[in-house]
């Protein structure tokens, strides 16, 4: 049976949960300090929660959560985290506002909205070449204006994406993915997308903005490619090379 609790009561549950997690014990006095209320207020709230079998509480002892209470607490925390993620990483809210808004909204949203939100966050993080971020000057923009000179308007970009993504084309003016280079082709790296889990390792190995790369050859079976960067040979899969944008020289 779902407990329908008021936001305040949910905050109590959350506070107790946090205290238990950090300090292994939740005292009435600590709860009062954290929630900025008097001990008497806390006591009366705890009684209500105890009546709903969400916590174990008897006067002058410490407080613990029942399994149902713990369950509820985890749900609330998750809602909080998803919202915070959304505010911070999708909407780029300033950090001070993130926690504040998340605390306020976490009590209001239901499971369906929550899951949609999760899906949306994932989508925005993954959307091809977008890497959407808030930018104080231009509003929401994708990763392409890492290099402002190469910026093309969002309308043009989406049109050209729709038209073709296969052959270089106008994706980002004259930048192409490294995987599109033929054997013998050379270029200068202008950006490395973060989508690839290996991005950091590649950068540590010298695939950084400004480096020259040359595709030495493509493996006989068509996949990994052998590139020369910083004077040595490195082999990469095309899948990884897709995330390295170069301008042809």
């Amino acid at each position, binding site marked *: 049976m779902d407990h329908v609790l008021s936001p305040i009561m949910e905050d109590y549950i959350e506070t107790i949960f946090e205290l238990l997690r*950090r300090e292994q014990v939740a005292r009435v006095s600590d709860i009062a300090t954290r929630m900025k209320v008097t001990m008497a207020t806390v006591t009366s709230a705890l009684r209500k929660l105890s009546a709903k079998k969400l916590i174990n509480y008897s006067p002058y002892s410490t407080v613990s959560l029942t399994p149902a209470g713990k369950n509820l607490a985890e749900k609330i925390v998750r809602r909080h985290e998803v919202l915070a993620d959304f505010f911070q990483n999708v909407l780029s809210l300033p950090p001070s506002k993130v926690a504040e808004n998340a605390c306020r909204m976490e009590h209001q949203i239901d499971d369906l909205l929550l899951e949609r939100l999760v899906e949306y966050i994932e989508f925005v993080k993954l959307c091809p070449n977008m890497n959407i971020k808030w930018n104080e000057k231009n509003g929401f923009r994708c*990763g392409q204006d890492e290099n402002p000179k190469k910026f093309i308007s969002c309308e043009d970009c989406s049109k050209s994406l729709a038209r073709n993504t296969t052959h270089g084309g106008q994706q980002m003016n004259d930048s192409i993915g490294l995987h599109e280079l033929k054997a013998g082709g050379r270029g200068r790296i202008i950006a490395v997308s973060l989508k690839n*889990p290996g991005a950091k390792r590649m*950068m540590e190995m*010298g695939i950084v903005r400004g480096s020259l790369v040359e595709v030495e050859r493509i493996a*006989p079976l068509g996949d*990994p490619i052998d590139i020369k960067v*910083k004077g040595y040979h*490195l082999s990469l899969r095309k899948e990884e090379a897709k995330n390295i944008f170069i301008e042809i020289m």
Partner: protein
Amino acid sequence: METLSKDKISLKNKSYQATKVVALTGNPNSGKTTIFNNLTGSRQHVANYPGVTVEIKESRVRNGGRDLKIVDLPGCYSLTPYSKEELIARNFIIDRKPDLVVDIIDLSNLERNLYLTVQLLELGIPIVLVLNQSDLAKRAGLRCDLAKLSRLLNVPVVETVGNRNIGTSQLLDTIWSELSNPRTPRPVIYENDFEEGIRQLCGDLKNSRDSDYPDKRWTAIKLIENDVDIKKRVWRMHPDADALSVLVDSVRRRLTSIYDTDPELAIADQRYGVIAGICRECTSADPRRRRSASDAIDSVALSKTFGLPLFLLTMYVVFHLTFTTAQPAMDFMEYCFVFLSSVLEGLWPEGSQSLLKSLLVDGIIAGVGSVVIFLPNILLLFLAIAVLEDSGYMARIAFLMDRIMNKIGLHGKSFIPMLTGFGCSIPGIMATRTLEHEHDRLTTMLVLPLISCGARLPIYALIIPAFFSAPWQAPVLWIIYITGIALSIVCARLLRSTILKGNQAPFVLELPPYRMPTVKGIFIHMWQKGWMYLRKAGTIILGISIVLWAMSTFPKPPEESLHGLTQEQVTEAEMAYSVAGRIGKAMEPLIKPLSFDWKIGTALVGALAAKEVFVAQLGIVYSMGEADEESESLRDTLRRNYNPLTGFCIMLFCLISAPCIATFAVTKKESGSWKWAFFQFIGLTVIAYIVTFAVYQTGRAFGIGV
């Protein structure tokens, strides 16, 4: 009070002058192990592909009455680790806090190697910079101003050529002078925004000798780089982890918005910027650079037309060498042992029932001898592997095969442990440490015993010539090896799509330049492996042979039950009465459908200890069973007793079934759980049973090889 007593202890330690620890670190394949061997006189494995060393190796050096501990570490590209062996190297440096770090740089590849150096400079530990492979750099027309580099970074710089042992004594001198008079390296300075962030975090960290993390500047930078492991260490130690965590987040967020990319990537950019500056200051390149020989080889060896055929040809040559070429030498060794046993037998009167004679002739010579005669094959196999490893072709194989491996659900790099597995499964399983993803690693480890190891070679070398005529010998060997490879592919595919699902790790592999393998290097390698094989024969296999001989001899049947039997029937009856006979007989119903009799059964049990024991045990059983005193070679005996189909089934079963005990133990250690070791052990045995059963029954039904 407490601090006081601590001070006392550290003072005390000082007066004892604990042995200084010097760690060798550097990018993979930069020549660390080569230098380690030069410094310490050891013979650790050196080869020309990244990721050869996967364990920490230590050795002591005495020099003028002073003691020094030198440690060889696995290679790493950065101090933020990606795979297990890199983590081992990184953790050694920050946990064991060596007194000095020797950073071995591949001078022909200076820029990328300095990336690690830049991070080492931040540690605050004294560093000696070694510019190794300076011969290659010279050939490529690169000059480096050592004095300037040394001044810029405030570290001593030494130039070496590892494989020719040039510069070793100078390096040792530098190590000593640096230990007695350490300098603090000069860390690089980042752009203002970064420095601001670093300052902020440093204010919240403490430098202390017994903390879990090293210097605070280094730690602050790693926190900005979002190094998960370092974060955990700091959280554990820090009095107010929450506040620090919030601070780190805010610093990272600020940097993200300034640089418009993750701080860890922005910092990589900056480091390479700094490095480019250093290189501009200290090096000059000869503009008339020739195309290197290595590139010329690759333009054939990796080309569309020749790449794959050359690979197959190489593999063919490897097996041809280990099998056909070794044949005459092996025949000769076999002849020697037959001769030896007939000489020994001559010491006793004809028909003697002496137990000692039986132990010597039937136990030790038949057991150990039948294993030792395959030494030539083993030597040639390791010769071939050493050439592949030292030439640099190994990494190319990973490059050529990645597409296929990818289809199987494995990583191209998995091919390197697998190739190593042709020699022995144990180093193969250890080599899986270079695989970044746990599931890739486990899968490779689990299917690796299916790659036919050197210890199984004697089994094939015994059986194939016994049952197959010359033109068929090579193809049959190929079928066995390929069956192993095919099964490992099928199993890997199955594992990856069921219990070991997961994303593919990115394939990022350095292809080192080709090098001419040195005769000395190859011989050392061959000698080591050959010696190991002989030592195994002289210890484990000798011991087991004696045990197996005893088991096949005792208990003796009661005298009266043997009355009226011919000599041949007596030996048969005696053997059946012995412990081994009884075990074999008990197994017989189980292995009958595979066409195996009880003698093969006992040999299979013995093979669990080491695969070669299979051959030893057959030698023992048949040597005892010989009714007449004429020694005949084991092959002829086998030919008389079994048909080719059974021979083939034996090889198949030995190929697939449970790996030897040592492999089992290594799988347990590397996977970290008994679960996987048992899974591998039982799984493989079941597969072996099913496959052999199917092959035998089909063969019999169609009358092939019976």
